[in-house]
């Protein structure tokens, strides 16, 4: 095969087919779908570029920035050339009347077929006057645009559960997209990709999944894709061994902080925040490129009731104790025959004293038996 042919068969100009397939395989792996890379590549190559309309409400553009920062292989190009971005306030060339006319035209032409992405919360107080675009409130625009969309993706914490604008005392009545759907009776399926900002690959994986399989990925009870939000940050944190061994940074800049110890006592919310930050990382610059990796405690930006709600310096309440998924099982299936040292690690109690180990062993054995009966918690 000639080189030109290989290059030509990639749907994106300037990106080789090899790089394109590599990207699709990576997306498939992120979604827990090994071997599906080729199918994703086919789905996005064969089809007409799907129209995407992007509505910005009470937002800071951080979600868009996050999306444009990814760069292998030139992801902004991938987004702009794989999908047909019909309307996006920050990226549109036209302004004012031109922009709004194009939005209306595109909505009419692609009725029932377009994906609507929403970033930012929707203010409802005082008839929604706290966010207006082209003279219309974000509330009116969302109703108009969402009822005619094939699917809606709420990107970022503001759109997913209210985020910063909805923080107490919520001066503008900032409301999450799915709550507006409930009150207005809009039935369009809606996925939440929370985070401040969220990882762009979680967003892109969701879009590619929808294009490939014509349905939304498996979602949890908060409508978040399970492949990204199925596990606690704490479960996959590279500092987890320090937590298990009771080695903590106690102050910013102290000896433990400089040695990369666990940030739990500085208020890290990893033990109660569901996200894949430690695995997916940010900005494609290699290991350690995520908040905890750089020495900053997680503040739970993606978790409703934690981020922008719970003070940074108050300790997290660990949800449950499991070993990180990257480690092999260290406990017996039925919870018998555990060594005390093994339990101290598995239980992950902060600085677990050996004396407390026996009590923990009993509890852990019970939990595991129950878990064995009902099948594994989640995958």
């Amino acid at each position: 095969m000639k080189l030109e042919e290989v290059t030509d068969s990639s749907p994106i100009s300037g990106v080789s087919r090899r790089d394109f397939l590599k990207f699709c395989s990576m997306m498939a792996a992120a979604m827990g779908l090994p071997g599906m890379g080729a199918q994703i590549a086919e789905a996005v190559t064969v089809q007409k570029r799907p129209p995407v309309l992007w509505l910005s409400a009470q937002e800071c553009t951080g979600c868009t920035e996050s999306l444009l920062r990814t760069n292998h292989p030139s992801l902004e190009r991938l987004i702009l050339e794989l999908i047909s971005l019909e309307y996006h306030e920050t990226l549109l060339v036209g302004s004012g009347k031109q922009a709004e006319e194009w939005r209306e035209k595109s909505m009419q032409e692609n009725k029932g077929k377009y994906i609507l992405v929403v970033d930012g919360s929707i203010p409802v107080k005082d008839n929604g006057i706290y966010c207006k675009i082209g003279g219309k409130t974000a509330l009116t625009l969302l109703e108009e645009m969402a009822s005619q969309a094939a699917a809606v993706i709420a990107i970022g914490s503001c759109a997913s559960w209210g985020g910063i604008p909805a923080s107490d005392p919520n001066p503008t009545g900032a409301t999450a997209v799915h709550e507006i759907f409930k009150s207005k009776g809009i039935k369009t399926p809606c996925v939440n990709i929370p985070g401040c900002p969220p990882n762009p690959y979680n967003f892109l994986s969701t879009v590619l999944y929808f294009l490939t399989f014509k349905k939304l990925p498996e979602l949890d009870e908060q409508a978040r894709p399970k492949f990204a939000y199925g596990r606690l940050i704490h479960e996959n944190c590279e500092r987890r061994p320090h937590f298990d061994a009771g080695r903590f940074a106690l102050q910013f800049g102290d000896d433990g902080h400089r040695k990369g110890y666990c940030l739990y006592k500085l208020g890290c919310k990893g033990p109660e925040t569901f996200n894949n930050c430690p695995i997916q990382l940010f900005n494609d610059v290699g290991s350690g490129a995520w908040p905890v990796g750089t020495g900053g405690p997680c503040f739970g930006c993606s978790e409703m009731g934690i981020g922008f709600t719970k003070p940074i310096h108050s300790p997290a309440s660990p949800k449950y104790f499991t070993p990180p998924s990257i480690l092999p099982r260290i406990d017996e299936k039925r919870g018998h025959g555990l060594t005390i040292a093994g339990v101290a690690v598995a239980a992950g109690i902060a600085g677990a004293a050996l004396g407390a180990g026996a009590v923990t062993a009993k509890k852990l054995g019970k939990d595991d038996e129950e878990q064995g009966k009902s099948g594994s918690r989640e995958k």
Partner: protein
Amino acid sequence: MAKRITIDPITRIEGHLRIDCEIDGGKVTNAWSSGQMWRGIENILQGRDPRDAWIFTQRFCGV
């Protein structure tokens, strides 16, 4: 006779901006710019732990 032009939204910027111009005889005689979105972060900050302030204020603008 003065003519008024409104450009809303102004694109390729962060946030929601509206510009109103008054034009008379081919010249702009008056102009107004107005932010079309308000979150009230100043009000949200009141009464919080000062060490939490940065997570709010740095999100005024994500660009």
